[in-house]
């Protein structure tokens, strides 16, 4: 056995021993769940099915191999979904009167799940988990490659025949990948080709113009890195091309001190990091972002990111007049536009609201059922561990 192999085995055994001391979270809501990979990497969290936004993970802890279990996020869930059929003058607001939780949640069975069903305290199975191989996680020349896996947890909601699979992927290497996959039945048609795509309905053999739609998904990420001491900071990274410096790109890191709305900047490779006082953190890179969702009634919707100070009642970006009273349940605030009130971020846990837009352009493959359209992003560990926890170089 080479020294390298010995070191690797030592770390694996250590990690397995560490993970064997698994502990259950004390969940104020939902159920405590845990998943350990063969490398020893482990995720712990509380899984919640919320009345308004369906799947939510709370108190998300990541334990890298050989490391201790540390908290990343307090809350992770959808903060709003806007569905705008192009022939209409405004968007449907799915987290509002319509909801993705409650009666909109689909009961899953083994056939629909394809993994492990979880019933929790609910009458019906509404959460499914499964593990996927994700291919080479690391590889260097002739050294044996390391294979990676991702643990996925999801719920499915239905709205007017459409299905929304709300999923959170937790990777072995600490990445967190929230996503929503749109499928189900496309039912809206139009007679104006400016608003849709022509196709032949295979059920009726009739030609129709199926209506296009823009969908905006906004995720709420309430960070609380390592502990709840409210000392996390948010930084913005920019790499602006400076012709005067011979086409160099100096890195500019700015700490964001008050609540703000931000747009991605493709040419400056803009990204955001949330870091703890000890420097460990997570990075949000809007690489997977495509287009802005401009909406004249909702200023916030044109921005890719909003950063607010944590407030327990600012959970959803409500729209319009229903913002303060939803099913007679009082909820504070209104939309993100109201949440951005200039409050300082110091000594408060930061909340990142990240939005992604995608256009549904119908085609024959979407009849009778829409071919899945997934919108995903990820946050990645950034100096979370001193080195890669998976491999040690001799």
């Amino acid at each position, binding site marked *: 056995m080479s020294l390298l192999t010995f070191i690797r085995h030592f770390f694996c055994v250590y990690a397995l021993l560490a993970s064997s001391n698994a502990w259950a979270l004390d969940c104020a809501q939902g159920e405590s769940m845990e998943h350990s990979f063969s490398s020893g990497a482990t995720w712990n969290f509380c899984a919640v099915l919320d009345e308004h936004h369906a799947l939510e993970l709370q108190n998300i802890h990541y334990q890298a191999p050989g490391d201790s279990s540390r908290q990343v996020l307090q809350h992770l869930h959808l903060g709003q979904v806007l569905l*705008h059929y*192009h022939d*209409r*003058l405004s968007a449907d607001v799915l987290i509002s009167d319509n909801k993705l939780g409650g009666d909109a949640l*689909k009961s899953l069975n083994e*056939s*629909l799940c394809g993994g492990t069903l979880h019933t929790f305290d609910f009458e019906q199975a509404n959460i499914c988990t499964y593990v996927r191989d994700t*291919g*080479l996680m*690391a*590889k*260097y020349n*002739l050294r*044996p490659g390391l294979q*990676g896996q991702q643990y996925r947890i999801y719920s499915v909601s239905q709205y007017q025949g459409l299905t929304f*699979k709300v999923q959170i992927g937790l990777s072995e*290497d600490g990445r967190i990948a929230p996503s929503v*996959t749109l*499928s189900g*039945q496309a039912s809206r048609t139009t007679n104006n080709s400016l*608003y849709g795509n*022509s*196709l032949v309905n*295979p*059920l009726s053999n009739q030609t129709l113009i199926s209506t296009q739609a823009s969908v905006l998904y906004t995720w709420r990420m309430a960070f609380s890195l390592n502990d709840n001491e409210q000392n996390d900071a948010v930084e913005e990274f920019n*790499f602006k091309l400076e012709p005067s410096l011979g086409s*160099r*790109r100096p*890195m500019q890191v700015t700490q964001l001190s008050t609540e703000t709305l931000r747009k991605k900047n*493709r*040419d400056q*490779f803009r990204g955001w990091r949330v870091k703890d006082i000890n420097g460990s953190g997570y*990075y949000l890179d809007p690489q*997977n*972002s*495509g*287009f*802005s969702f*401009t*909406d*004249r009634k909702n200023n916030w919707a044109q921005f890719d990111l909003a950063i607010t100070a944590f407030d327990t009642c600012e959970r959803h970006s409500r729209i319009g007049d229903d913002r303060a009273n939803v099913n007679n349940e009082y909820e504070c605030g209104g939309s993100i536009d109201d949440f951005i009130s200039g409050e300082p971020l110091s000594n408060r846990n930061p909340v990142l609201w990240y939005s992604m*837009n995608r*256009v549904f*352009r119908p*085609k*024959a*493959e*979407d009849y*009778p*059922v829409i*071919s*899945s359209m*997934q919108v995903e992003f990820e946050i990645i*560990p*950034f100096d*979370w*561990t*001193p*080195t*890669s926890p998976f491999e040690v170089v001799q």
Partner: protein
Amino acid sequence: MKRFNLSVYCLLLLLACLPNAATAQASPDCTGDALITETFDNGATWQMCWESRIRENLVLSDVFYTPPNGEPKRILSSARLSQLHVAYDDSDVTYNDITQYGLGGGYLVELADVDCPYGELMLVQTRPAICRWRSQGRDNYRTAARSVEAESLSLFSVSQVGAYAYIVTWKFFSDGAIEPQIGATGALQRNSDKIELPFGRLLHGDDETLWLSHTHNYYWRLDFDLGESANDDVVTESKTRLTDDGDRQTTVEKFVAEQARMIDSDEPVAWEIWDGLEGDKPGANDSGYRIEPIRYGHRLERTDKEPYTEFDFFVTVANECERFASQNARFNPDCLNHVAQFANGESLVDADITLWHRVSFHHVPRNEDQRHMHTHWDGFAIEPVNIHKSTPGIDIANNSAPVIEDIEDQTSNLGLRIQWQLEFTDADNDGAHFSATGLPDGLQISDSGRIYGTANRAGTFAVNVTTNDDIASSAQQFNWTVLDTSASTDKEKGGFLGAISLWGLLLGTTLLLLRWRRVTD
């Protein structure tokens, strides 16, 4: 009879001698190890030829797709990575890895079983260097009643260029989609001892080395040949804009000359290539493929030195001499040098068309990159548009409708709380969902077939319940009579009072017994 046979023979010979356009090639032009064929559980099949070149490494050609229950259709004449351009933040020097080094030959890494644990290794000459992996992992479609995942055929190799290991991957899905991807792993390449400069980051354990931030720009070259003729493909651009009124309108532009296009974040765009186009706009009978840019948060632009970096997407007339997105003249001295020059206004009408697509990723070093760095993946999707007649994998013709179990006429009392789950059977074992019309006021039905609520109006109601599995439906009718029997209306209330009476009786009896026991003691 002999004369007839001779005539048929002559006819066949004549057909064989006709030009290629009339005798469409229905399968890839290769055999043996050079041919890849993968048939998925839904019946869809991908076929293609492959080779490994010194520069580009994996080049796929003659790519055919057969939809479930369909005929083989030629999709691509060739597909490959055409440049791997790297720019570091601390300098204006850039690297063109494919033309300066190469991804094949000595840069191609020999793979072991542990690198390809779920698939099989294919030989490049004598070395195992391509992993062929059939996997599941992406949703195909999902409804309330059913969920199907798309299978995929993955082909990947690893090229070690300096400290970086690039995992060039092609995925072909059972729903007709294609995803080119690159995973960048290995180790960080460049550093500087000028730690005070703002071009990188110090990583844990070494305060004297600045690891430099940099951008990877991947240029993909896709020579589409949809259908029988290579020269009838048409490219369109769809752009969506929000109007002042609040609706969103999509306009379609048909490209008639070569193009270099840039993404505008405020105008969602999709580029489509069609197997011929009858009019100026695609209609229901046009089919092709779509590239919709959704992962474009980064864009490296250095137009002063490298003008092609201004654009994300190019449409050119196919030319084998135009092989690399940059530094092309290095290996093709009689040709233009980069892709922006290739797009110089030639007519696309009746021409064989090549699409070029750029994806950028800016890499900021982090502690986790030492060593070895976790793979960061970048790619895009090419999805079929009207290539299928319907959602791939759903057999509309042979689907059976779900059937609700027999429902008799119902009678209930006004004010009674109802909870009633309808049952169904489906010969295909599909799930089903429900809807209803005519239910008594106050009652509703859930998608899963649960009728619930409290009837609040007396009368007889004609109810029609429908169930469907998203493809076919069946229905049942019955009458539901709601009686206004005030004296014995509220079963729950009556039940509750009844329960109180029963408990009262039990309590009274117990007290009497205790009292009797005390007396007798």
